[in-house]
């Protein structure tokens, strides 16, 4: 074997090792899926059942109260399943994530453009303040915020949660969008200005459309982060506006812990994130370094 072949073989072996490690590493996700699709009895049996017939009982029970065994007629009375609190909370998660993401991405694109292209007095300090707001421990800000929200009637409202998440994502969006605008050639604007467009027009007509790739990446990141957020939702909401994550943390509010339900709910939270992560692809590193490292 020559040097090249030896490297090839070594590479193959390492890839096999990597796949093996991955299987061990992602075992908890497999286990989540298996717990969610097993019957209560099978979920707790040790040694575990490696072969089982998948069933959707748990998912149905997570969505509908009374959808379990009592579906149909009980003592001659028809039992209709009612939507559960978790279904509403999942809806809240979706609304809050999408609205705050849209707002943060749009406002972040505007500010990101300014910070990338225009001369701003004390730019570095302003950017530092913006990113610091992101670095703050949520609990620090939450203590006064809870009092403020109660006083203003924003406590336990979707609106209150949305504006908080908008701010939370905005810092990230500003830094991300600034790095994306940096990549757009300055000639775009110069040409437009020569044609008689104002800077404002040039931005919306030529630059803003060029920023769409960056905005999509920023939006996906914000979406995932809001979807996953725990502390603010825990502290700023009660019954009505609560999102899914703290609800799962509190065992979906059921008396006693039903792990089948929790696994089903958790799996529903995890699944969209998998899809969105694959959509992000090469932008992952950029997102986690606030645009500093580009692939």
């Amino acid at each position, binding site marked *: 074997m020559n040097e090249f072949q030896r490297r090839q073989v070594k590479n193959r072996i390492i890839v096999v090792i*990597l796949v093996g490690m991955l299987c061990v590493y992602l075992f*908890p996700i497999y286990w989540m899926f298996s717990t969610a699709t097993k019957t209560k009895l099978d979920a707790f049996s040790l040694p575990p059942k490696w072969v089982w017939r998948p069933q959707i009982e748990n998912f149905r029970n997570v969505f509908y109260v009374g959808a379990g065994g009592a579906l149909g007629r009980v003592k001659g009375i028809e039992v209709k399943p009612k939507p559960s609190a978790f279904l509403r909370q999942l809806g809240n998660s979706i609304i809050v994530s999408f609205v705050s993401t849209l707002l943060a991405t749009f406002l972040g694109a505007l500010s990101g453009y*300014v910070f990338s292209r225009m001369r701003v007095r004390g730019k570095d300090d302003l950017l530092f303040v913006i990113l610091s707001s992101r670095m703050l421990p949520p609990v620090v800000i939450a203590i006064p915020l809870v009092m403020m929200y109660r006083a203003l009637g924003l406590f336990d409202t979707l609106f209150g949660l949305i504006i908080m998440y908008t701010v939370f994502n905005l810092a990230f969006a500003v830094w991300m969008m600034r790095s994306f605008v940096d990549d757009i050639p300055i000639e775009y604007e110069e040409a437009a200005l020569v044609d008689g467009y104002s800077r404002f027009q040039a931005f919306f007509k030529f630059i803003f459309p060029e920023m769409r790739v960056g905005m999509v990446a920023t939006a996906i990141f914000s979406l995932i982060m809001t979807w996953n957020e725990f502390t603010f939702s825990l502290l700023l909401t009660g019954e009505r506006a609560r999102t899914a994550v703290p609800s799962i943390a509190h065992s979906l509010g059921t008396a006693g812990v039903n792990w089948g339900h929790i696994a089903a709910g958790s799996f529903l939270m995890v699944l969209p994130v998998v899809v969105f992560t694959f959509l992000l692809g090469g932008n992952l590193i950029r997102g986690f370094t606030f645009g500093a490292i580009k692939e």
Partner: protein
Amino acid sequence: MVGIRNTWANRVSERGMLYLFLLPTFVLLLFLVIFPLIWSLYLSFCQYSANAANPPIFVGIRNFSFIFQQKEIWDRFAVTGKFVAMAVVVEFFLGFFIAMLLNREFYGKGVLTTLFILPMMFSPAVIGKFFRFMMDTNWGIINYILGKLFGIPKIAWTTSYEYALPSIVVADVWIWTPFIVLLSLAGLSSVPKYLYEAADVDRASGWFKFRYITLPYVAPILLLAVLFRTMDAFRFFDLVYVITEGGPGYSTQIIPFYIYKLAFSYWHTGQSCALAYVLLIIIIALSNIYITYLNRLRRT
């Protein structure tokens, strides 16, 4: 051209545009971050309980001196430090090892890398909750596998003094090792190939290449990763909340969790604000270093 010039949009000056674009961002920051912070600074000098009818009473620095005199607070700082140290060390070596393995050309590299990255994209609270299920002493899958494969007797993961903090570390490692993988990969791919080729010509050893070529390129990014993870340990308490609820005793009460307890279980609002400010100063110091490093990376 007339269409371009005779509209209001054409008359927006550059100054005007600057203010228009930055205003919403700063109004939101002012309203939801800066104002609350000023308020809590005031409260940190007051004796106050948010669920009592009494208004805040100004007491000077009493909250701060009280905090620093309490042994329990220092214990909680120690717990936080222990947690960061254990988690970061394991994540660091594991993550860097995986990144070294991933740093080569092969079919399906992108998919494999993304699959390794996945755990850090999930909600820690959700994942932590499920780890608690897997870590159950009697019917948890982790004890079962450890027993079957290695003959280890059942461990009381989340409920014993010795293992409560390690069980949070285990969940943390599962979630955040990908972060080190991601940053290490970025560092590794930034090393110019010709340096290795030159080293090969000189018949340099593998260790030499690692020490004098790889490490200098990767080190700044890894420092960033360690810094970020340290900050996270002072910021979030999701895992503690769902896995051990701070117990047994207060053996897993990291600082942010303790602040949460002070503020929303014991309702010592004044004290919690004071401790929050201490934490804030730590975080600002750390993030200052962090952002400086980010900016330096951005320029290169």
